């Protein structure tokens, strides 16, 4: 276990997850389809989860992995709510592009 870490080195895990995280961010920034935006957010969260796991191995400490469960659960809940909102929007608007959500401004 730890020799893997030693071979690869914690930094690389961090870089990887940062890259993933940024991919998520860019996804959120550039995609207009709400579902895809959700997915990008999920990517961000999972990047973090990955890093959690890596760290917990690095520290030889279980807390991190436990935390991952928390975050996954939370993410699930979040997405559930989000999708619900999305559905009602689709009902009212007939589209799920976030570009249509510009009535509130100024």
């Amino acid at each position: 276990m730890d020799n893997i870490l030693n071979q690869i080195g914690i930094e690389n895990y961090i870089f990887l997850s940062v890259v993933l995280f940024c991919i998520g961010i860019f996804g959120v920034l550039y995609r207009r389809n709400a579902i895809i935006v959700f997915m990008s957010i999920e990517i961000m969260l999972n990047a973090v989860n990955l890093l959690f796991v890596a760290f917990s191995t690095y520290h030889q400490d279980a807390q991190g992995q436990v935390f991952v469960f928390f975050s996954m659960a939370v993410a699930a809940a979040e997405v559930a709510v989000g999708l619900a909102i999305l559905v009602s929007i689709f009902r009212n608007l007939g589209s799920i592009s976030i570009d249509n959500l510009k009535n509130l401004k100024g």
Partner: protein
Amino acid sequence: MNTLIAITGLGIFCLLFEILNFRKGIIPFTILGLLGVLALNFYEFGSTESYYNNMITVSKFSTSFSSLFIILTIFLVALSHNFYENHPTKISDFVAIKIFLLAGGVAMVSFGNLAMFFLGIEILSIALYVLAASERLNLKSNEAGMKYFLMGSFASGIILFGICLIYGAMGSFDVVEISEYSLSAELPIWFPIGMVLVTIGMLFKIAAVPFHFWAPDVYEGSPALTTALMSTLAKVVAIATLFKLISSLNFIPSLENQDHLNTFENIIIFISIASMTVGNIMALRQVNVKRMLAFSGISHAGFMLMTFLTAATSAGVLLYYTAAYALAGIAAFSVILYVCKNQNDEDITNFHGLGKTNPLLAAILTASLLSMAGIPIFSGFFAKLFLFNQTIQAGHITLVIVAVINSIISVGYYFKLILAMYSKEPNQERTGKPFLIYAVAIVSITLNIALGLFPSLVLDLLN
């Protein structure tokens, strides 16, 4: 701790009531329950102990803030009675959600472990997403919910990443341990980065510039009661939590070791100046009262941030400021709820001639606005006074002067509303005197003025 459990229990009871088809009783029961919780909380006050190997630590700070949250929730629940009277089927859900939200808030201020902190935030936020979007058929509400959800979860992601980096640096989520490590000589760079990320996430929650864009839209779109909740309870919770985070993790001292302190302070100063200026100036041209209050909330966030510069000593000031601000906000919103009950928007024209039709409510709204503007004998003034006092002691006189100029600007839009109430002719007759709204308005403004007359009551709690 018991407070937290009690609150959660209360929430579940609300849901049960619905099942037992006992709607009538929900509001009074919840209010009574919350009062009980409040008493319990007072009982816990002063004792500093930690539960479940430091998942939760109860301290003066947490208890006093939680009691503030509970009081606010009582008001909000009381208001919800006649806010939801058109669709009674939902009332239990909404009340329950508010209670859980409160639970999240309490968890946030009394966390002893970053996991708890994260859970708290999420409970709060998810509840808010729901409430924001709770008017299913109203597109505005949907849009508000969506916006808040997207940006909120984005922010949560950032926070999570921050927590992760902290964990990586410290190998622990426990606040106490982290604070101990953080004073040690050489820290991995991840710790400060993580802290900054968490801070940014929280800044989003308290709607500080430049992370404030969501606030006006969401406030305007969501149902009035939810707006009330966001602008009072949610904001207060967030700022309190951020304060606790920064002070309890010894973040600033740790930066000190790596001489980043000034830079961080500069960031705070910059953000607070930006928030108050942008908030106030943007509010000048608003015609929708909720939107206006959203911007005023942003500017107040800027004011509250000033306490971070003297984090060591200014917990009391923060408590006082938040209490004053939130109480004024509740009073104001209860009047807004009354006025805009059957209007499709909260346009300022709805308030025309309120001074003639409902002098009492008009007086209360005026009082709360004056309090927010910081006019004497209302607690808002003393809040600003103590804040400035602290900040000048810390030697940031220019910041104070900017703040002063801002509070002058703020008078401009607060008085727009007062003018509308007193110097315009009423354009509609307003009937009915809903007891609960009047009660809430009167009680909250009375508390506000009482705080103004005896500031020491609150101020000395945390000193």
